[in-house]
């Protein structure tokens, strides 16, 4: 049996990575998005490619696999996407033993996590608060500009003969293909890569999965001389990512971008798709950033942006075939880590869809695990 033509629904970084991997495997791919390309969650994050924030487990394995793939993938698509392997620095201002223990645990799982003292931390980040008691340096953490990365992947798909159709909404899926707002697109398989909107799209495609939005806000300062060298986190970041509490959680992530701005993240709230600004959230981000970098106090904040991160009830990505509808696949639920996890997700989906040997264990991400089928 020949390989099917595939429709990927969702032109964010996950959809783009799936489409890129499928087209590289020789499949004919059409990418649909109800809006413009790379305009949802992928346009509302910091561009994190992280291992530092992940506990040992399947997500960390996927992150390590992705990290290894990003540079070769970027070489293959050939665009400048502001890739910067700057490394991460997680700092604690309280009890140093918790962070040290977490890092030791990660090291055992293959993460390069180097416990350093305050002196080396200040050497790496001269503007850092002197209240730091201990720090862990993660040389593997990197950053890229997510919209550039997504459009670069989609450009590669286009150059291989794939079709990009922004402004086209997927309405249903049947034996003849995907029914859309602009006619039927014939195909043998469809990939739901709609991020926080994957739940709604899965219903339209005939097999609902439980993916919810969690809102994240980021502050952007005016361009300034380069003062923050790494991705610098407060040690409580890890707790926020792994939690399902609806209440506001913020933990500081401060970093510079290629454009000279400083990004200050990030908050996590479950507020549905509510886009309105909450000053309380912005104030919390500002407080923690100034506590970490007192020298930023006088810097103007010129923008705040927010986005919705998709999460499954168990906070693991959902990657694989839907057992209920033959030909329906999902690649979603990456929460705030979609940029970092995209290359391995795209590769894994393509491997499963073409029957190749998966490069990471697909079991933890399977669609029919408890709680995901809605």
């Amino acid at each position, binding site marked *: 049996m020949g390989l099917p033509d595939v429709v990927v629904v969702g032109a964010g970084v996950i959809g783009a990575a799936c489409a890129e991997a499928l087209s590289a495997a020789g499949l004919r791919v059409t990418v649909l998005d109800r809006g413009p390309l790379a305009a949802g969650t992928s346009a509302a994050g910091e561009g994190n490619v992280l291992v530092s924030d992940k506990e040992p487990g399947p997500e960390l394995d996927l992150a390590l696999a992705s990290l290894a793939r990003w540079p070769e993938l970027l070489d293959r698509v050939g665009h400048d996407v502001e890739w910067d392997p700057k490394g991460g620095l997680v700092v604690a201002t309280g009890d140093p033993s918790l962070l040290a223990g977490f890092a030791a645990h990660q090291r055992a799982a293959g993460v390069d996590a180097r416990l350093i003292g305050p002196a080396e931390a200040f050497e790496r980040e001269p503007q850092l608060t002197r209240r730091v008691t201990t720090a862990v340096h993660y040389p593997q953490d990197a950053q890229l500009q997510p919209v550039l990365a997504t459009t670069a992947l989609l450009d590669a798909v286009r150059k291989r003969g794939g079709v990009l159709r922004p*402004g086209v909404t997927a309405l249903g899926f049947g034996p003849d293909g995907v029914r859309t707002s602009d006619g039927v697109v014939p195909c043998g398989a469809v990939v739901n890569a709609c991020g926080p909107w994957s739940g709604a799209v899965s219903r339209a495609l005939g097999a609902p999965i439980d993916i919810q939005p969690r809102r994240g806000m980021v502050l952007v300062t005016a361009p300034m001389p380069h003062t923050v060298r790494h991705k610098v986190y407060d040690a409580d970041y890890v707790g926020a990512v792994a939690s399902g509490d609806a209440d506001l959680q913020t933990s500081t992530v401060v970093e510079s971008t290629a454009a000279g701005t400083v990004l200050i993240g990030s908050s996590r709230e479950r507020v549905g798709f509510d886009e309105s600004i909450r000053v309380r959230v912005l104030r919390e981000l500002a407080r923690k950033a100034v506590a970490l970098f007192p020298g930023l106090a006088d810097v103007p904040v010129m923008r705040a942006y927010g986005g919705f991160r998709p999460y499954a009830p168990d906070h693991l990505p959902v990657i694989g075939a839907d057992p209920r509808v033959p030909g329906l696949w999902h690649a979603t639920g990456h929460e705030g880590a979609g940029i970092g996890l995209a290359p391995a997700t795209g590769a894994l989906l393509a491997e499963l869809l073409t029957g190749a040997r998966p490069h990471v264990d697909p079991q933890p991400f399977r669609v029919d695990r408890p709680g995901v089928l809605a």
Partner: protein
Amino acid sequence: MAAANAAARAGAEVVLVDGEPTLGGQYYRGTPQRVDPAVEHLAESAVWAMEGLRLHIRTGAADSPHRTGTVVDADAVVLATGAHDRVVPFPGWDLPGVYTAGAAQTLAKSQGIAVGARVVVSGTGPFLLPVAESLVKVGARVLGVCEANSGTGWLRHPRAANPGKMAELAHYAGMLLKLRVPLWRKTAVVAAHGTDRVTAVTIARLNPDWTIRATRRIEVDAVCVGHGFTPRLELAVAAGCALKDGFVAVDERGATSVPGVYAAGEITGIGGADLAAAEGEVAGAAAAGSESTKSLTGARRFAAALADAHPIKPGWQTWLTPETLVCRCEEVTYQALCAATDLDAAGVRTLKLTSRVGLGLCQGRMCGRNATELAATRLDQAFFDEAALHRRPIATPIRLSELAETPLEPQEDP
């Protein structure tokens, strides 16, 4: 001011939040104004965020980190945030010595400064005439006013019957004659020349679509440009107000789509100071639960006729070279914008984040409309959402230290 007065007359407790140190805004700059003594005037104050009808305000010297933060919970809000000059890009428009028409006007009226000794004013619309007059008053020699459109059609427009306004415009036209400032119709400055400051401009005779017919070069030391106005919509968008044709959609009482939020003046349509004041009076009264007897129909008709006579024609896009800056803050060239449209960057966010257009300190206030119009010309299909162009939830920059201690609730009066 008109809205505040009307609301105070209707018995409401009124706070007037004003970015300027003194009353009057852009139009009455330099001419002292008064409001109803019952109105609390918060001068040098900016609403930097809105949460529903809760206003977050900073008061103090512009961009100082030592401003005071206050929070006001209102029963109703009238937005009258006005407009700023739109300037379409052309080669050399980023040189020192190129000013917006509004800058020349403001510097003349409030600082008594002429932006140059030999000046050309260029753009479209009746606002160019008082700018030329102000320049002459402070000692500049205005070599000419370039009006890109034919600029007279509206006089014969059947909807333009508004004797008062006509007299005002006739006054400026007469003034130009008296001051011997020539008005060059169907003409525009299409390039500015110089290395570190403008020393000359290319003036083009235009076709009706604003493409270039013929050019000549003249020596200047300043040029003032204004191609109509861009409404300042960030607060209206933050409040969730629906937009229509690029302005805040309002009913005849100035009510927006959001209960409790009213809008008046240039953010509801460019119409000049008289119409804005009338709209303010109507919206202010409505916001206070009263009703004004003021009729806006005639003035709105006249404004619409004027706007019809001064369109921005797409031929301006042919003035650019690949190296012309589209975004001044991030120094994004036309060429770089084209590279983004080649990647199908057809949404506001995608276009910004692939080209960096509009990501600088002005947050796309100067370039947003120009960039999306240029991009739309090059795209098969564009998704440039009007509200996305004006979505700036932080409406004016706030220092990190100010944000870190900003109050979340209104404080009780002592």
